[in-house]
């Protein structure tokens, strides 16, 4: 049975039953409870992301901006507006060695009054470092003993992210960030946005006109080269009070276009993020899914 026949037969069956049964369409709203209990938090800090893939989109900056704006309008948490943390640099500089800890940026509004450090620098990824419990101070620009590269290497695929992922388990670092921003819920993670292309047989619809000039649309199978993007974010939710990971979620979305179609990377990025945002939001806040059902008599 072809899909078209199946659809036609189920529509016929529905129409037949509908003819015999009294039924009433009714709109419903299904409330979905949030995955995380965030009632203990008043504020949320979208700290930044370790991003890689194409150079056409700054995955760290764009994801942070987008999530902040979504949370501002669609959650009850107050969104902390501050510079995006250069997590790649932090991860590079603090490679999981316990004696070296990254210092939270001191340019943030909540940090005013604390020992000063120029905000611009951290924005450009040149943030200095301070030893844990002020015991050890690294001179600025001097690389700490590291297993990871001194300079963040270009992240081209998911494997390249691995050397940086230890940052999410760095309880002390996140606790410090949490203290600085008054114990918020911290959202961070990784974002891979990579171009990809695929070729193969694709079914598409084509208009044909018969000898009487009547138009018909017929499915045509053709070989096509297509290109697009894959977006693979991992959202990590950290308790700013303890610095521990509360929850993490992986997503994957992809989009393909005809090879001759030119779509800017940024618009593809937003297209793919649009698909993920509802799932991201439903982790933090209750959502209502609107739908229609059929009541039967």
């Amino acid at each position, binding site marked *: 049975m072809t899909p078209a026949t199946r659809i036609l037969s189920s529509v016929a069956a529905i129409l037949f039953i509908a003819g015999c049964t009294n039924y009433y369409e009714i709109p419903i709203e299904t409330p979905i409870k949030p995955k995380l209990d965030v009632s203990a938090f008043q504020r949320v800090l979208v700290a930044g992301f370790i991003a890689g893939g194409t150079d056409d989109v700054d995955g760290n900056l764009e994801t942070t901006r987008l999530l902040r704006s979504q949370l501002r309008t669609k959650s009850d948490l107050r969104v902390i507006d501050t510079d995006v943390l250069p997590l790649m640099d932090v991860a590079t500089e603090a490679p999981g060695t316990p004696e070296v800890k990254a210092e939270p940026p001191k340019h943030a509004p909540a940090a005013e009054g604390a020992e000063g450090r120029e905000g611009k620098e951290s924005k450009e990824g040149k943030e200095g470092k301070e030893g844990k419990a002020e015991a050890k101070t690294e001179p600025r620009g001097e690389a700490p003993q590291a297993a990871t590269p001194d300079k963040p290497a270009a992240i081209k695929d998911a494997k390249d992210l691995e050397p940086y992922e230890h940052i999410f388990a760095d309880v002390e670092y996140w606790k410090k960030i949490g203290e600085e921003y008054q114990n918020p819920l911290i959202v961070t993670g990784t974002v891979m946005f990579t171009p990809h292309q695929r070729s193969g047989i694709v079914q598409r619809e084509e208009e044909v006109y018969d000898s009487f000039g009547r138009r018909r649309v017929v499915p045509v199978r053709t070989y096509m080269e297509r290109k697009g993007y894959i977006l693979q974010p991992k959202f990590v939710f950290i308790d700013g009070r303890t610095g521990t990971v509360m929850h993490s979620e992986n997503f994957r979305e992809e989009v393909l276009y005809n090879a001759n179609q030119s779509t800017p990377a940024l618009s593809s990025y937003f297209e793919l993020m649009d698909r993920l945002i509802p799932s991201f939001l439903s*982790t933090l806040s209750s959502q209502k899914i609107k739908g229609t059902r059929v009541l039967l008599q």
Partner: protein
Amino acid sequence: MRTRVLTILLLLGATAAPLAADARSDAKKQVEFGITVAQRGLWREAIYRWQRAAQIDPKYAEAYNDLAIAYEHEGDLEKARVAYEKALEIEPNNALIKQNYELFKEINDRTTRKDTQDDPGNQNP
């Protein structure tokens, strides 16, 4: 003796059908009332009515279908799933119930997916 048994069986058969019809008719009244109140947004009352209908006539698939919808609306997805499955157990070929169930499953799968992502191995990257 055999005649007597046959007579009793016939009598039982004759009375059972009207009794079942009565049960269905009573249950149907409950379902109708449930639909009326649900359309006015009184879902709790509707749930009560449809539960009553299912008690009166446990083979009334439509009552379970309506009950499932109400549970969905209340966010009680587990109860909704049980009610849909009961409705489909009674009437496996009812296309409208199947359609409702498919729509429900889309939502239910989404929440289940979230649960599986919350495994402890995922906690500490």
